[in-house]
């Protein structure tokens, strides 16, 4: 006996028809680096050191650093705007 059943999902996992990842840059030279610090542990110290290291290694076009006001929620709208308008490539850590 055949069974008709409903899809329990909100859409295919891992696929998006609206978004695609931006192409990975070949080099960071000239790129404007965005850094998102979630506030856990010593991550800001880590990212500051990472920024210094990258500035030593390459000619970045600029740095936008966002420090979230809370560890578990997205950046404030103002910080999102700074990031999306000011950065061409971003690094963020994931933790917690």
């Amino acid at each position, binding site marked *: *006996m*055949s*069974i*008709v*059943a*409903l*899809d*329990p*999902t*909100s*859409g295919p*996992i*891992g696929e998006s028809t609206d978004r695609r990842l931006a192409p990975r840059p070949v080099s960071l030279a000239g790129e404007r680096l965005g850094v998102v610090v979630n506030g*856990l542990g010593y991550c800001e110290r880590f990212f500051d050191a990472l920024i210094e290291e990258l500035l030593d290694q390459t000619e970045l076009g600029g740095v936008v650093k966002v420090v979230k*006001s*809370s*560890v*578990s*929620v*997205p950046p404030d709208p103002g910080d999102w705007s700074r990031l999306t308008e000011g950065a061409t490539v971003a690094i963020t850590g*994931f*933790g*917690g």
Partner: protein
Amino acid sequence: MLHAPRDEWPDPDAFLEDAYERGWTDGLPVVPATPEKVEAFLATAGLDPETVLGAVPTREVTVTAEHAAINAVMAGCRPEYFPVVVAAVRAHLDEFGNCHSTTGTLSGAAQALIVNGPIRQELGIASGMGCLGPGFRANATIGRALRLVIRNVCRSVPGFLDRATFSWPLRYSFCFGEDEEAGDWVPLHVQRGYEPEQSTVTVQSVMRMVSAWDSTSRDATGVLDSIVAETRYHGFNGDEFLGDGTNIVYIMGREHQRFFFEEGWSKAQMQEYLWPRLDAETAGLHDRRFKLGHPENILLVAAGGAGMAETWILSPHLARAITRPVERVAHTPSGRSAH
């Protein structure tokens, strides 16, 4: 009218294998969500399929009653369990339930569902011996329904948006009732502003579940001091987002409860005793301040059977405990006993 895509399979085995293939399950077999079953579930809660129960804005996900009903069928719920599932989904998707964080975190936080009110007996939601473990259909499937919604609708799939390093078995299902009949304590939902005759679900994120096992103390303060010590030993991480609303849940078993009943302690008195001791400044690596805004943020729940002298500590992960009422169209007692 139901909106979810539908497919046809030649037999139940074919459906089950395809459900696994499509990633619809938590690793355990699921029940096919036929349109007829889903409509029956929606009817118990009096909800239209497109009723919005909540959303996860960061994931651009909206959870409808239909989504919840499909996953409740798949979890193995009976139709009359669905209003409890609805309350649980609504609670979890509250802004301060913080679905995005608690279901994506490296820590693999789980969700504890605490059920209060008459619906416990009506549906057979266990609150006594063995209530935190397997063997009770209502407990197992209601908790599982929420987790399937989290997986299938909120997209918390391991390796995708679920980044848990280990995860843990509580994420299969974690639902139990408060043993309101154990003594004269005010039930959790009444403390949180509901009438005794109302039924509610409280959802608490759980980052850590540890036992404050104390078979030595012979009075209430001894037990409370053990609970404080165990809580402070493990500590927790707070979040500015939660303000002063962080909660901790203590599930107190019968062997500990009896000291408080014998000595006449109310939950409010226990909260007043615990709070300043939890809030004391950090004294060392394993004696850390557990910052809670108010004594009322300490949620004490009676549950479990006789035997083990312990209180289970549910430390939160970056969310508040949220309580929502169970709303039904018609009262249909099942006649089941929870014990």
